[in-house]
């Protein structure tokens, strides 16, 4: 199993009482809540944390993309990744992003990713997403075109990386006389591709297809859902006549480890609850604009008693395995068990979340890197496999 340090770069200085006036930390929350002086300090602190992960021996760092919100300050993840590309030496840099349907010209992603891949000498992992529903409010892109634009933009980018240019591209949403991306990818034939998702059978069908074999990344969901979707991926792969490797499965989860269970819970509580109830806060209409999900999936959401909007606590998310928290022994035991049962090969831990301050973030990173990671590396040493995302696939 490989270990990644994921950051959302929240605006941790957000006035927590904003929700007395506004119903979301996204889209409609006035940006007068953002103080550039504080932002400057946060950006540099967060970049230091990402760089520290390289020194602590993580396999990779992950940056993120969201627009017009206090939840994450990385609207243009290539800026973050670019800053990291020269200040880190060993880690992979996963951009998770990029939200392809938002772009009028997806070739900008083909270009920024190949630049990063060349500068780092092949340390880039290329993430492709549709973005969450709020992005469609932020950017004005039609959510009913989200799936169509995603698939077409993906086809265009992969073709730009793997086929000699110049060529013409004739799609429904994109039509180009010249596709001739300079530079070409450093990793040949292309960087590994990861597909983060909150859980979707349609996405699994697509990502697991033998022509792609992309790494499917389950983000912030209960362990039971994680298990369900990972199993689904393996079964679909089997249906295609191949066995999915653990390189094709990843999990992204917030985690806090401290000296004891009690200390961990006490230190993490206010910050994970701020993450859940302040930073993630948005009404359903914002999260799920019409067309973002298929009608069938949308009906499923309507019927499920959704937790969107309802208050969550540290206990409720720990119980569901959406947040891993405890002493090194507790955390080791849980992760070892989940990994054994579910079989994911990439573990993306969010070691800063919500308002978690710098000193606790560093302590969390250090204990995790010294007392959890090495143990799990030994225990879960799988037969060595090629880079994820089926490079060449």
């Amino acid at each position, binding site marked *: 199993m490989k270990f990644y340090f994921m950051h959302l770069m929240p605006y941790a200085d957000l006035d927590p009482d904003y929700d007395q006036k506004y119903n979301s930390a996204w889209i409609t929350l006035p940006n007068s809540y953002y103080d550039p002086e504080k932002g400057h300090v946060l950006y540099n602190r967060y970049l230091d944390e990402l760089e520290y992960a390289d020194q602590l021996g993580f396999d990779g760092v992950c940056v993120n993309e969201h627009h017009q919100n206090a939840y994450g300050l990385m609207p243009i993840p290539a800026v973050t990744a670019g800053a990291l590309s020269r200040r880190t030496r060993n880690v992979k840099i996963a951009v998770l992003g990029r939200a392809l349907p938002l772009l009028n010209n997806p070739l900008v992603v083909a270009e920024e990713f190949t630049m990063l891949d060349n500068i780092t000498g092949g340390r880039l992992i290329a993430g492709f997403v549709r973005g969450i529903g709020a992005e469609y409010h932020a950017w004005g892109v*039609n959510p009913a075109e989200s799936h169509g634009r995603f698939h077409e933009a993906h086809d265009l980018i992969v073709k730009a990386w793997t086929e000699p240019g110049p060529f013409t591209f004739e799609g429904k949403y994109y039509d180009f006389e010249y596709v001739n991306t300079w530079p070409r990818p450093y990793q040949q034939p292309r960087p590994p591709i990861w597909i983060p998702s909150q859980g979707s059978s349609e996405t699994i069908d697509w990502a697991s297809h033998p022509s792609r074999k992309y790494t499917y990344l389950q983000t912030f969901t209960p362990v039971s859902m994680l298990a369900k979707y990972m199993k689904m991926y393996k079964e679909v792969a089997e249906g295609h006549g191949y066995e999915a490797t653990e390189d094709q499965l990843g999990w992204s989860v917030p985690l806090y480890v401290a000296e004891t269970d009690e200390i961990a819970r006490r230190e993490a509580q206010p910050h994970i609850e701020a993450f859940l109830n302040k930073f993630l806060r948005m009404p359903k*209409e914002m999260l799920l604009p019409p067309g973002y999900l298929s*009608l069938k999936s949308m009906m499923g959401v*309507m019927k499920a008693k959704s937790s969107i909007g309802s208050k969550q606590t540290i206990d409720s998310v720990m119980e569901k395995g959406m947040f891993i928290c405890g002493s090194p022994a507790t955390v080791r035991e849980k992760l070892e068990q989940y990994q054994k049962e579910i079989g994911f090969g990439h573990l993306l831990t969010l070691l800063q979340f919500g308002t978690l301050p710098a000193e606790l973030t560093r302590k969390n990173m250090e204990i995790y890197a010294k007392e959890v990671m090495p143990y799990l590396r030994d225990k879960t040493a799988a037969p060595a496999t090629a880079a994820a995302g089926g490079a060449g696939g």
Partner: protein
Amino acid sequence: MPFRDTTETIAGCKTRIMRGGSGAPLLFLHGANGAAHWLPFMEALSERYDVIVPEHPGFGASDMPDWLDNIGDLAFFYLDVIDHFGLDRVNVVGQSIGGWVAAEMATRNDSKLASLILVAAAGIRIVGVRKPDMFLWSPEETVRNLFHDQSLAEKALANPPSTDEEQMVMLKNRLTTAKLGWQPRLYNPDLEKWLHRISVPTLILWGDNDKVIQPEYGPAWADRIPGARLQTFAECGHLPHVEKADDYVASVSSFIEESAR
């Protein structure tokens, strides 16, 4: 007056159509909430007219055809509908998004039209009079913002879509509304350039307390369509055919009679 509830295949799309009454043809083009039921105003109009109420492709019980991408596709579809039924001297009444479709259709070809009635129509933009973002409204806000008289909103809120079918239709209508009107928001920048082509008598109707598309849009339409007349309903929201059904039927009928002379 009984109405017929049928499915016709037009432009390859299975289309649900309610039709009742006799007299001059009246084609009603519904708004974002679809046209699931034969409403009292339809019944009243059917006493004098041959009232034809399709559910647009992508709405209600009609199919979602592959060709449906934008409002122009629906405009051409309704020209096909007129040909399909061999209609002539049609009175077209369009509500909200249906008004947008009607205006788009009439700019393309109004030779089979007798009159055009646009009610709280989407389709144009007045810079500085931004339509509110209905896609961020909660279900309750949406219902409340449709009506001036909040007792009507209360009544609607007391009877939300309950069956799976009704909920599915609601989601489908919302999806197609987004498809047609998300970006640019509920207008076509090219439409107003060609509204001068409309040569049939045109009536613009608006509620004076429309919270979905502001009443300022009424005069804007009337200015852009040659000879168009504007009438405003007092104490009325976005759905005059529901909220002021008697006045609405009277206005529509008298305009159609006048246009026929």
